[in-house]
């Protein structure tokens, strides 16, 4: 937990303006936010934990659960939507047994639905960590996941 203190020390500014940058830094470091980190941040910035929690849950960037080794983002921007991104999502739900915002129990995969990823020309798009898959089809999902699983074994 002293990693949090380190982050907090980097923010000399002790006011509410710093809250979002601090949360972003903490999440970058740990991958998610925990009750404990909220308390520390709150003590540093003199803010009640409820306010920090309320703020963090307002924004889609923040999560309270660790992400999987492979974080899958499914674009559901307008262009991807009309190109049937919901089917892709459904297939991922089925293949992984998780829904938006969850991670598989083995910690391998997590799933997130995002707004436009910026490649509407290539819709529908998904991303697994930093690798993008333009023009994916829902029937190709299982293969993709299998490849990752075998690679990992």
């Amino acid at each position: 937990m002293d990693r949090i203190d380190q982050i907090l020390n980097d923010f000399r500014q002790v006011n509410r303006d710093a809250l979002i940058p601090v949360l972003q830094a903490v999440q970058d470091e740990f991958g998610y936010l925990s009750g404990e980190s909220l308390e520390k941040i709150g003590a540093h910035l003199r803010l009640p934990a409820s306010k920090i929690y309320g703020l963090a849950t307002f924004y889609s960037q923040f999560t309270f659960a660790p992400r999987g080794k492979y974080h899958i983002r499914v674009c559901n921007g307008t262009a991807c939507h009309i190109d049937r991104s919901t089917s892709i999502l459904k297939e991922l739900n089925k293949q992984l047994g998780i829904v938006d915002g969850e991670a598989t129990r083995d910690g391998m995969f997590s799933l997130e639905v995002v707004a436009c990823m910026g490649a509407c020309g290539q819709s529908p798009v998904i991303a697994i960590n930093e690798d993008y898959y333009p023009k994916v089809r829902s029937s190709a999902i299982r293969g993709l996941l299998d490849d990752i699983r075998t690679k990992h074994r």
Partner: protein
Amino acid sequence: MTEEVHTGSIKKLIPEFIEKDPKEYSPELVELIERLTHLKILKPLIMVGLNTSGRIAGARRVFEAVTGYLKERDIDAEMAETGAIGLNSEEPVLSVQLPGRTRVLFINVAVDDVQVILDDVFHHTIPREKLLGQIRDENMDAWQDVPFLDELAFFSRQRRILLKQNGIIDPLSIDAYIAHGGYRTFLKTIRYHTLEEICVMMEESGLRGRSGSGFLTGKKWMVAQQTPAEQKYLVCNAEESDPGAFMDRALMEGNPHQLIEGICIAAYAIGATKAYIYIRSEYNDSIRKLSAAIQAARDYGILGHNIFFSGFNLSISIRKGPGAFVCGEETALIASMEGKRGMPQSKPPYPAERGFHKKPTIVNNVETLSNVPHIIANGPEWFRGIGTGDCTGTKIFSVSGRARTRGLIEIPMGTSLEVLVQEIIGGSQPGRTLKAVHIGGPYGGMLPASKLNIPVCYETFRRAGAVLGAGGILVLDEKTCVVDLVKYFMGFMKHQSCGKCIPCREGTKRMSELLDEITRKPLAEDQHDTLEKFRGLMQLEKLADVMRDTSLCGLGQLAANPLISALWHFREEFEEHIFDRHCKPNVCRELRTYYIDVELCTGCTVCAKRCPEDAIIGTERHPYFIVPDKCTGCGICKEVCKFSAVFYN
């Protein structure tokens, strides 16, 4: 990047830049400019569009392939990255320029194409296959039989002012920007103009907020400028939260210094010494380039304390928006910068009087601010000469969906939408028919293909029941479903509403539920249910009025727009969904009935294993059967069946 030009050498020449007329520049400066603007190059120049959509399409790999190619053959050439030229559906884009010759652009470049293209170009022939065209330049030798970009349908009707350097300039090079004339306007402004003068010039130019607000920018600035306060702020709104809008991103990734210069001038005009760029955290590439640009400007003394002895101080910092559509709304954005939930506040007071930290704050959109250097440099009359009386200047549109070409288009205001859709982007994709275009994102509206002949302008659009908004255009063809699209937007809005006020929070929720119902099969064949849905639909229009009338911010006020305009133009599609339970374009899968043809099915079990709903039953090597009540119409069985035994009606 530019090796033979010592980086920073242009820094020393900035005073000369500001004080002298271009005709009197020293030979040293002239040569430097020619070098940096690539007018005269000494070795081949290769550029790859490394903007976000290019990267996703594989531009990074193309870039590496080019580097590898050059290294292998020991060719001395210059490589640089650039932004999006605007042909997003044709990425990756690669351009090559040989000394003395015009630059040639190639599109849809795959890693395998790199060798072919470069081999040919270095042997002074231009391969036809992935060719787009060449950039016209009188000072260079043109290639034979290669079309000029300005002759292509996509470019010929555009008027590129803000996008002029996009896809051409190296966004990471402040030298290149300065060589192209950049920052001169800002540095002259702070020397020779008063704050009022700039505000007045802006007002005279008639520039209106490009976020879709349509508010006169100069007028807004004047309010902040004249509100006394010891600290004022300028905020560049780079949240660009509309799905389907990507013009701000393109401007930031393609030409960040243009935006920075706009921010500098705007900050000066309102008397702000602190400026912020509020940008969504997902825009990694924009953040990277803006940070680099700010750092470079600081190094050059263009930002900081007592800028070029003018007495003006300015710092720009970046705030990463943690992801909420509503934070595009200015009061919510300010709340977010103050470390609060991004809930909009009642206006008045307007941010121009009482904004960030209760101080006068101007929030302007990226595209708005990118216009500023051009207006101040060329004068308000020049700007008013473009566009129409009410709507001056150009507007950038981002086109996505089922268009033949998808990408960025900059046209003068007042151009007919028909020209944009039919001529510039070439209508719908081959073999498809254009059905409608949806403009303005989740609070926009749609226009059927037959009603596109309206000039691009805030008021004309509003009168036609559409919304110019930020300029996102979604092209729909006969295989898209209007009801589904409206449902999508409403679902988006219900999730993105901040939830503060009742009409918006509850209204979007109720509407979304009803649209969900319409696109789903009723549990039992029930006439009553149908009537309920229809009655619900009738209620929606009244509800939309109340939402518009009473919601606190634009989100709730406009959330019902897509629905209302769709009901207006495509009412029969809604009725078809409700009464016939049929979706003609076959998009609302839950209305489909899938079945397996007994004759064709070999009983291979593949579909049963893949069905996400476990809706397919049967015994191996015997025909399988779909349980209609369980099937949600995802279509996977049809996709995976090797024997094409799955059908739907």
